[in-house]
Structure formats: C-alpha cells, structure tokens
C-alpha cells in the first residue's frame, strides 16, 4: 500500500488482524470433522433407529388402526411368566458363565502369551461352528440314551437316566456353552491389563497370596466381569434356537413367543410389542445398574 500504512504505529495492527479468518478456518474444520462422521451417523440411523422406530410403529397398529391392544394383551399372568422366565434364565446363565468363565480367563491371563493364545483358540473353536450344529450336538449328548447318561449308568454313578434335555437343565447347559466365549473374551482382555506389580505390592505389604488376590486382584477384575456379564445377559435375552430345541416346549422365552406371533399368527403388531417391552425392560435394568454401581468412577484409572 502507501507509505501511510507502513508508518502506522506498531500497536494499531488493523491491517494485520486475522481473527476472522482464523475463526472461519476453525468453523470449517469443525464442519469437515462432522462431515467425516456423517457416514457412520447415517449407518446408525438407518440400521438402528429406523428399525426400532418401525418396531414401535408396528406395535401400535391393530387391524390398520392405532391401538394399544397389543400392550393390553400382555397385561396377563401368562405373559408376565414368559418375561419373568426369560430374565431368570438369562440371569442364571450369566451367573454360571461367570463361575465357569472367570477361572478359565484368570488362568489364561496368568499364562505365557503363547500358551494363552492356544487356549484362546480352544475357547473360540466352537464359536466358529454353526449354532444349530452345536445345539443338535448337545441333544445327542444329553438325551435319555445319550453319551452322558450312558456313561453315568455304565460306571454305576446313577441307575436311571437323568432328564438332561427337553427341560430347563438342557436349555441352560446349551446356552451356557454358547455364551461362554462372550464372557471369557472381555474378561480375559480385562484381566490381562491388571498390572501384576499390584500383587507384588500387596505381598510386600503383608498380604498372603490368597488375601492379595481377594483384596486387590479380584476387585480390579470386577469391571471385566461386569463387561462380560452385560454382554452375556443381553445376548441371552434374545436367544431363540437353543431354548426352542433343548427346552422341549417346556421353556418359553420371549424370543419364542415373538417367533410364534410372527410366523404362526402373522401378527406383526403382537410380535413387535413384545420386542418393544423387552427392549424397554432391558434399558431400564441397565440404567438402574449403572446408577447403582457407577462402574467407571469406582474402578477407573487402573
């Protein structure tokens, strides 16, 4: 420009003020970041919110008209029993999965990496087999003249075959087998990260190995247990094949009722309302659980 701007005092830096450009650049960056997340957002909307919304919509329609009939129908002892049984079985399987999975995950977390890797393959192997195949395999194993009953009678442990299948026992055994990897994987990942210096520290401070385990390692492993338990519990709520095949009609879970409504009676509204209620109860349960335990703040910052 002219000599005038060259001789302007240093403090009066108006021609050099780039605040607006920098602010614009900042807004541009925010927009580009949002644009980058857009495909993922779209995917979630299409695949999660869309179907759930549709589910809600269907559950409120009866004979082409808006109605609460589907929900009113559920206000009966029979439906209450189905939901109650679903949650009881899920809870039982989750509890058993912790009891069986924890020792295994603990062992794996303490073993050298290579051996732990081999064990992990053993845990995952059934995972790669078809769910249906595994369920039928359990039927073969558990039936009246199946391998387990034959072996127990053969060795004289029992005289008459045990009722292991076509009932709750069979359902729980089958579900436990299917759910175990979902417990072991997150639990193992979490146990692996527990710094063993904590155990040395406890030992140095006077804790015997058993007390060091219960006072230090076990509390630190609880977030992993919660993670595995939540995963297993949620998956249990929706399991269909296993209780249908191993329950012998005596075990009715919500998923089976949904199947019945949809496939047998072609009543999509009734099926949807069951799904909505299941979803609602689950969300409320987890909200309560997270309020009660505050897992993150309790164990955060290992």
């Amino acid at each position: 420009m002219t000599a005038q701007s060259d001789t302007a005092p240093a403090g009066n830096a108006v021609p050099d003020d780039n605040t607006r450009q920098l602010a614009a650049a900042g807004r541009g960056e925010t927009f580009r970041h949002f644009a980058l997340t857009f495909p993922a957002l779209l995917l979630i909307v299409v695949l999660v919110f869309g179907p759930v919304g549709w589910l809600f919509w269907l559950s409120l329609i009866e004979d082409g008209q808006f109605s609460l009939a589907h929900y009113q129908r559920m206000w009966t002892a029979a439906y209450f029993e189905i939901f109650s049984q679903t949650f009881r079985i899920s809870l039982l399987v989750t509890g058993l999965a912790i009891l069986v999975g924890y020792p295994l995950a603990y062992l794996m977390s303490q073993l050298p990496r290579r051996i732990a890797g081999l064990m992990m393959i053993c845990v995952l192997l059934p995972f790669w087999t078809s769910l249906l195949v595994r369920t039928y395999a359990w039927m073969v194993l558990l039936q009246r003249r199946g391998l387990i009953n034959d072996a127990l009678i053969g060795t004289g442990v029992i005289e008459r075959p045990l009722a292991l299948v076509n009932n709750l026992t069979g359902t729980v055994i089958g579900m436990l087998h299917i759910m175990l990897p979902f417990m072991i994987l997150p639990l193992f990942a979490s146990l692996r990260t527990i710094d063993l210096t904590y155990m040395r520290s406890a030992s140095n401070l006077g804790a015997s190995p058993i007390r060091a385990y219960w006072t230090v390692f076990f509390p630190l492993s609880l977030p992993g247990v919660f993670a595995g338990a939540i995963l297993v519990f949620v998956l249990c709520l929706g399991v269909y094949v296993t209780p249908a095949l191993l329950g012998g009609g005596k075990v009715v879970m919500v998923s089976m009722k949904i199947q019945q409504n949809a496939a047998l009676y072609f009543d999509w509204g009734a099926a949807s309302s069951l799904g909505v209620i299941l979803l609602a109860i689950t969300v409320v349960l987890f909200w309560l659980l997270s309020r009660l335990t505050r897992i993150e703040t309790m164990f955060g910052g290992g």
Partner: protein
Amino acid sequence: MNGSTGLSISGLSKHYGSFRALDAIDLAIGAGEFMTLLGPSGSGKTTLLMTIAGFTRPTKGHIRIAGRDLAAVPPHKRNFGMVFQHYSLFPHLNVAENVAYPLRMRRMSRTDTEQRVAHALDLVQLRHLSDQRVGNLSGGQKQRIALARAIVFEPDVLLMDEPLSALDKNLREQMQFEIRSLHDRLGITTVYVTHDQREALTMSDRIAVINHGRIAQLGTPTDLYNRPADSFVAEFLGESTLLPIERSGVDYTLSGQPLRHDHSAPDARYLMVRPEKLEFWEPGLEPTHNRFNGTIEQKVFQGDSLQIRIRLASGQQIVMRRPARRTVLDRIGEGGAEIALALHSDDTVLVPDGAA
C-alpha cells in the same frame, strides 16, 4: 518408629542359566543407614533389591536381619516396606485405604489403624487427601502416598526402586530432600535403587556401585567421587576425563610428563580429571600442583558455569568447568588461545581399568 535393624547380605547370587545377574554379593547395611545401590541398567541393582524384597529367589546366599535368614521367606512375611517405581497404589482404594492396607493385612484394630494412617499421612503432609481417589493425584502426591504406605507398618527395612524416575527434575530434587529428611526423622534402614548418580550422591550415607552383578565399589559419596576404585566408577559417578598414563619405574607419566600424586592404585592405567578440580595456573603452584599446557578448543556457556574444552599439548582433550563469573570470563581467551592448567596432587587420581 525407631529401633531399626541392619541388614546383612552374604554370598548372594542369582544365575539365569550361565548369566550371573548377581555374583556373590556381600553387603552389610547398618541399622538406620541410607544405602544406595547405583548402577547402569542391567547391572543387577534391581535384581538385588527384588531379591531382598523376596520377589526374586536367589540361587544361593543369605539375607540376614537380626540373625534371621530371610533368603527362603516369602515376601509377605519379611516385614519390609517397598516403594515401587510406578507407585503401585491400588486404584480401587482411596488414599487412606491404601495407606491402611498393610495394617489391615496385619489385622490391626480400627482405632490403631486410623491413628497410624493419620500419622503416616501427616509425615508426608498429605492428610487432607485422605478421601481422594488415587487416580486424581499428581505424580508427586502418589509418590508420597506410596511412601506413607511403605512406612505406616514400621517395617524393618524400607526398599525403594527408582521411586523418583517418573517425576520431573524440580520435583525430583525436592523429593530427594524430603525422603532424606523423612529417613533422618524415622531412622529407618533404607535401601535405595537408582541409576541417577547425582541422586545417589545427594541422598546416601553410603553408595554401592553395582556393575555386572558385582559391587564395583562401596563407600561414602565423598569416597566414591574423590577416590573411585577404577575407571568404571570414575566415569559412572560424576563428570570426568580419563587420560591413559604410562608407568615408568615407581612413578607414572602422562605423555612423558611425570605426575605428582598423593594416592595411587597398584595397577593405575588412567589419570582421572574432574572438570571442577582444574584451576588456572599461577606462579608458585609448582610444589603442590601438576601443570598442563594446552589450547582452548571450545567454550560452552551453561548458565551457572562455563565448560571449557582444552586440547593438551600431547593431543588429548580435557574438560574444565569454572563458575561463570566475571573474573573467570575475563581470564579465558577465545578459541585457539593458549592456556596453562593446574591440578592439585591430591586431586590427581590414578585409577586402574574397570570392566565397563
């Protein structure tokens, strides 16, 4: 927390196959003494500490305290307090619960526990943090809590494994002072591991320099600094220039120049020169000092001091350090200027070759 006991280590070895992590270590630590194990990484200092703590089982040898051999005693029955490198505070417990942990393991009554925890937290001046989660603390605070936890049960010995290595420089220096003053108040026998020679010099009653699983030298900081046993200790502890010397008859010479010296080891191979011991040559220093002539190669301003690199007439380089004072600055010429240096015969230290 008085009545501390000494610790006696004899013939302690740890072999991993043919590798000797510890090679027949003998070390007597006096009651209430602050002993530092100093060495480069892989020297065996940490192995020695872990063996004392009971986490590493020795191949052979004894660790005795008050006549009792602890070599085969599991760590939780040793009654040694330990501060770990990364604090190792239990993240699921708050500050007070962490400090109370060793007392809980000793099934101490509730009132005694509360009293002791409060006292220990007072000692490290962090009582106001009692209810804090460990995750919310700063590095220095964690270090103090770890210290409180290690002393609250009045252990026979306090072990510290590079406790300050994760802190920044200023905090580290402050903590060195705090740990030392806490040690002096409690009179607790302390074994401190570090690879920081300055930290060792600052804090210790005695230092054991460890190298290749053996004690290279054991002594007070002054001993080690002024009279290193060999070239390894001389180089590891403090700044030094090592110049090869020759033996002629009963005397030693540096490039033909006879050296006036007060102390000598039998197989001396090097002249060790500490940068701060070198002075400017003055007439009249002949009876007590050695004289070295050279030219200034480089001057480096380091704030408090001036580092001067000098090429001796014999071709070897030597480093001198002088306070950055006007009088000093005035005396030192530019690069290439000639300079005459003086080294007192008492500071003319001749050392044998040490395995590096």
